[in-house]
């Protein structure tokens, strides 16, 4: 129920830089996901929002209020810790009741809230246990419970469902998103799982090595990644990359790889020209945007050999080799190629991305 503004924030641990010149505005009631690989500074950012970590430089605002020097208790936040941080000597119930007790809520209300949260988290039977007697996932749910019993201004979640099994995780994704919508609480959600980001967030901030790469809606991030890192990090299975050469100019450029000659559309060609793309570029294409035909007389641009096939139930992942490179193709097919079988691959030229080979910047 407030916006959160991160303005030019840096975080150093001694000489190690964890966060570099970060600028993010989390809008009122927004569900923002901080997404990035391990060690990219997500937790550091979140902990600065919570007030647990000193802000090396820059400012953090909740609404119009600068909170740099405000202690956690006065920020009205609820946080789920990466390492749970449960109170070992208290039962699950007492753990979850603690924030309410500190607010001096009366006993019956506390009980009601805690039981409600426990039901949602499916840990009702565990309320009288101590944290040592819980599995990792149960501890994690207790930690979530401790945060959601309150109605704070800002929710801060640090990989809250990373240790749950797949089914429970998908259940919790839905529950947390629903809860956030219902309470209309500004939420910052840290994860390294791009699926969580894509499914839950209003907007995603992708971070890498302490630097914000891209901030946008899941659709924007997925369809228009600004650089090779974002393109490769978001999407499962990851995007395929292929070093290509640009030939031709003006309105009719084409990408050349081996004996594949991929004609680009007029607009794509013009973008490459105006942005001054070098001849050598990197092509990015998602596994869904590739077509595959089995056999040798397929008539497609690329001839390849199947490396391995991975059935996913409905879909099939096929990894195929050609020359030095390997691509993953996702198809809804029944026919099972065998490793070593010949096949042909075609690229959907409308869906491809082209990146600068040196800087990784996307042209489109």
């Amino acid at each position, binding site marked *: 129920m407030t916006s959160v503004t991160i303005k030019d924030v840096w975080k150093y641990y001694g000489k190690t830089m964890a966060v570099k010149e970060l600028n993010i505005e989390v809008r009122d009631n927004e569900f923002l996901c901080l997404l990035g690989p391990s060690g990219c500074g997500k937790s550091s950012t979140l902990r600065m929002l*919570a*007030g*647990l970590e000193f802000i090396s430089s820059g400012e953090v605002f909740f609404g119009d209020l600068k909170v740099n020097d405000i*202690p*956690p*208790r006065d920020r009205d*936040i*609820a*946080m789920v*810790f990466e*390492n*749970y*941080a*449960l*109170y*070992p*000597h208290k039962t699950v119930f007492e753990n979850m009741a*603690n*924030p309410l007790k*500190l*607010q001096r809520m009366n006993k019956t209300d506390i009980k009601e809230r805690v039981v409600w949260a426990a039901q949602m988290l499916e840990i009702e039977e565990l309320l009288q246990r101590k944290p*040592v007697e*819980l599995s990792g996932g149960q501890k994690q749910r207790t930690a979530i419970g*401790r945060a959601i019993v309150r109605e704070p201004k800002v929710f*801060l979640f640090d990989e809250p469902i990373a240790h749950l099994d797949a089914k429970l995780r998908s259940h919790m994704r839905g529950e947390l998103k629903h809860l956030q919508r219902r309470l209309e609480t500004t939420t910052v959600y840290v994860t390294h799982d791009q699926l969580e980001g894509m499914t839950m967030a209003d907007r995603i901030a992708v971070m890498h090595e302490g630097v914000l790469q891209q901030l946008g809606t899941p659709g924007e991030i997925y369809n228009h990644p600004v650089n090779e890192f974002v393109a490769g990090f978001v999407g499962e299975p990851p995007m395929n990359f292929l070093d290509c050469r640009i030939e031709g100019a003006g309105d009719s450029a084409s990408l050349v790889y081996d004996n594949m000659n991929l004609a680009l559309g007029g607009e794509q060609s013009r973008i490459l020209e105006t942005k001054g793309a070098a001849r050598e570029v990197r092509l990015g294409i998602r596994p869904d945007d590739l077509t595959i035909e089995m056999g040798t007389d397929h008539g497609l641009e690329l001839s390849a050999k199947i490396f391995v096939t991975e059935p996913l139930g409905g879909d099939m992942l096929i990894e195929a080799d050609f020359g030095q490179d390997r691509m993953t193709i996702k198809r809804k097919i029944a026919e099972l190629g065998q490793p070593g079988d010949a096949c042909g691959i075609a690229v959907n030229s409308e869906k491809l991305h082209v990146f600068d080979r040196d800087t990784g910047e996307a042209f489109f």
Partner: protein
Amino acid sequence: MASREIVRYKSPARTAFSVLVILFLIIFFVWTVLPLAIMLTSSFKDLLDAFKLPAEGDWGGVGVMFDFKPTGAHYVELFTEKHFGEYMRNSLIASLGSAVVSVFLGSMAAYALSRAEFRGKKDLLFWIISTRMAPVVAVMVPLYVIFRSSGLVGTLPGLILAYTTFNLPFAIWILKGFFDNVPYAIEEAALCDGANRWQALRMIMPLVAPGVGAFIVLCVLFGWNDFLFASIIGSGGAKTLPVATAELVQPVKIQWGSIMAAGVVTTVPMMFLGLLIRRYLVTGLTMGAVRE
């Protein structure tokens, strides 16, 4: 989380080892308990019975030592004529007082030293423990001078202060270890839950409580058993049990019965204390018990 059960596997070496362990324990038991048993029985004997000993090598005659008419006369004498009640009270106040003061101040300092990072922290820690490196006798004379000029000689507060000087550095070090074992994340969670620093500290107190309790006992033991400070700084107004006992050794007449009774009076309360808090003592001093 893994349980803390230790899995044992049988092997001949293990069996042989456990026999050795039992043998050792028996010898150890006799070694520790025999003096106490002699002290206890002698305290109930009159002077004649006390010196009825079997001839050397005559193991069969051991029974002689237990053949006596018990008398409580020594105890009565201690508490009526010799004012041991008062000395006991002095001992209690001095040792408990210093223990409480040391642990209170010690845990404050230890908490700060455990949680805060600042320049020169290592040096500060070393300085604190270095105050314990000189033997007590080495500082006794200057300490006595200081205490006398402040009018603390022969008073209980003086004795408490003297014990605290020596308990506190130790307390800080040991208690810092206990706090170090409690993950800071627990306090962070409390802070986010809306607790202030004091409430957050209170949140982790139960986790260090066994350690603190155990350490209080160590401090009490130090004060209770101390002779040097008590005889010099406490002399006069604040006589404690060990000093009073020593005074029973007089040039003309060594009062063996009273000495034995005084020994029992001095030992028994601490033994009960030990039994009472045994459970905490063990969990406290082996406290790797708190974990993430």
